[in-house]
């Protein structure tokens, strides 16, 4: 199966400069009962986005008309807590294609990569600058070039390389999903099992 390819992304950004945003905030547990991957975006950040009567909370960033785009600029240790991939589905279903931070929780990073959502890690100082500049000018366009592994913003002069391992990068560029990669390796896996004395 193939996924949407990721090559170059150019977009305005949504800033969310909070540390340790956990997956319970990204998608609260009470929305996890579905059995398909669709439609989680409508409950993304549910309890920060809507009050208990279902009305929009005006100053939450997703409800502010000046901010939009497909890049979420987050704070440190983004996506900590529960392993729920629903968090990534919600972010992607809402329309984000990349999340920028200075650090991600491990499981979140894997889940994102497995769903074609690109986690981009940049140094802390750069992240603070970028967040501040977006705050001052929500129209700033950020460009993420996966092939060259560089994130730039012409208006601010920012230009930072980012790391990603080459296997993950190739998967994203080509849209190949990792499950197909493993399924194609089944005979090798069977050999491994035999070397350990059988699948038991």
């Amino acid at each position, binding site marked *: *199966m193939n996924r949407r390819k990721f090559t170059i992304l150019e977009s305005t950004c949504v800033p969310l*400069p*909070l*540390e*340790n945003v*956990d997956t*319970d*905030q990204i998608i*609260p*547990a*009470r929305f*996890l*009962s*579905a*059995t*398909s*991957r669709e439609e989680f975006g409508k409950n993304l950040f549910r*309890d920060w986005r809507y009050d*208990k009567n279902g009305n929009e909370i005006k100053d939450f960033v997703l409800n502010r008309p000046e901010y939009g785009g497909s890049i979420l600029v987050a*704070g*440190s*240790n983004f996506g*900590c*807590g*529960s*392993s*729920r*991939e*629903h968090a*990534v589905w919600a972010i992607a279903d809402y329309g984000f294609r990349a999340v920028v931070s200075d*650090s991600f*929780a*491990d*499981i979140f990073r*894997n*889940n994102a990569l*497995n*769903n074609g959502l690109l986690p981009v890690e940049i140094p*802390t100082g750069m*992240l*603070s600058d970028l*967040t501040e500049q977006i705050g001052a000018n929500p129209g700033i366009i950020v460009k993420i070039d996966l092939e060259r592994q560089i994130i730039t913003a012409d208006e601010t002069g920012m230009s930072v390389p980012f790391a990603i*391992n*080459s*296997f*993950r990068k190739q998967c994203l560029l080509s849209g190949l999903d*990792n*499950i*197909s*990669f*493993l*399924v194609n*390796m*089944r005979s*090798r*896996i069977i050999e*491994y*099992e035999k070397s350990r004395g059988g*699948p*038991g």
Partner: protein
Amino acid sequence: MEPRTLFDKIWDAHTVKSVEDGPDVLYIDRHYIHEVTSPQAFLGLRQRSIGVFRPEKTTAVADHNIPTTDQHLPIRDAVSRAQVEALADNCRVAGIEYFGIGHHNNGIVHVTGPELGKTLPGMTIVCGDSHTSTHGAFGTIAFGIGTSEVEMVLATQCILQARPGRMRITVNGELSKGVTSKDLILYIISSVSTSGAAGYFVEYAGEAIKSLSMEARMTICNMSIEMGARGGLIAPDEITADYLSRIPSFNRNPEAVSLTENWLSLRTDPGAVFDRELEFDASSVPPMITWGTNPGMGMAVDGKIPEADQPGPGGNDSFLKALEYMDFKPGMKLLGYPVDYVFLGSCTNGRIEDLRAFASMVEGRQKAPGVTVLIVPGSQQVARQAEEEGLTEIFKRAGFAMRQPGCSSCLAMNDDKIPPGKYAVSTSNRNFEGRQGPGARTILAGPLAAATAAVTGRITDPRKLIRVCD
């Protein structure tokens, strides 16, 4: 040969292939699944028209969204019911062992696996749940995965995984009276922070760890994820062997003796190098509680909330946001603060030892008026044992009722929600905003502090109520 860590020995033995500048293909010995993070994985397999590769290596339970009362009746909430039914169907079609609601082996996935002897030293174990790290107490590499990875394991019994860094946390000395392993791990997390071990797999070592029971070790490993670690593990020893020897299914295994001998040699070689090492002194650990909205925001039960957090990107904002959510003030003391709910349960503290600890405190005392107390055993086996040992009776006499097993109020997917604005002293693992229900305010603690809150209605130092003869 170079000295190696226990972690590396297990990892290397399970590496099917190393992808160049990429993750390793890691073989998984035991896969646990539950109703919430598996349906989309089975759906993916159907879309690919492939079956489950090694169904005998997967075990399923319904635990996350099930009710903890009237489990003999159909689940009332239609969406939850559909999710549990989907799990039952998927397991039946694939030939996967399934312990559904009410089954005598049912319970929280991280409580039942070890009880049933399915978690064994030296294994690689994954589950679509971040607290899979619990199983590391047996000397396994166990960690939580996302649903795409659940699909990988179902399809190939392997996942793609980058090798994490090596970290060792050594705890010397002895825990004081009235201090549990939950306090120890909350203490460690509050010192390293909620992201302090990100990118690492932690080995816990030292006298204090070695003296802990398997249950207490599981509590420690369980919360490794709350400091950002990929997982945590403890080398198997006589205490591990003794725990396993009491499991009937393990005893029936003709190789039990030779297996146990092998396991006892599974350990980190002297001189093996860790990327990061930390040391703690168990005797300086007090009973702990949390005051904020992540497990790193903890303090001594009689301590004070900090005046301010370090500035950083969003640093002080997150600190103030947490206090606002909890309706606490910087510098405040919480000792004596009134609470509305107490929750004893979860894969962190829902084991028989935790129920015993709670019972030891409430025996001969009475539930405080105005406090709602949920005692939720981690599994059917824990519930049966509590009954046999007379704990259920002690709870009853003190004014508490025991519920049926499940994740319950730990993540409040079922009806066991803490109402908005109410304070709950919880033995679970997460105090995130809304974790126990929208607007709920969670104070994490060990089973002893939970018990004292249940009988006094306030945050109370368990050392003050503990009986000298205990």
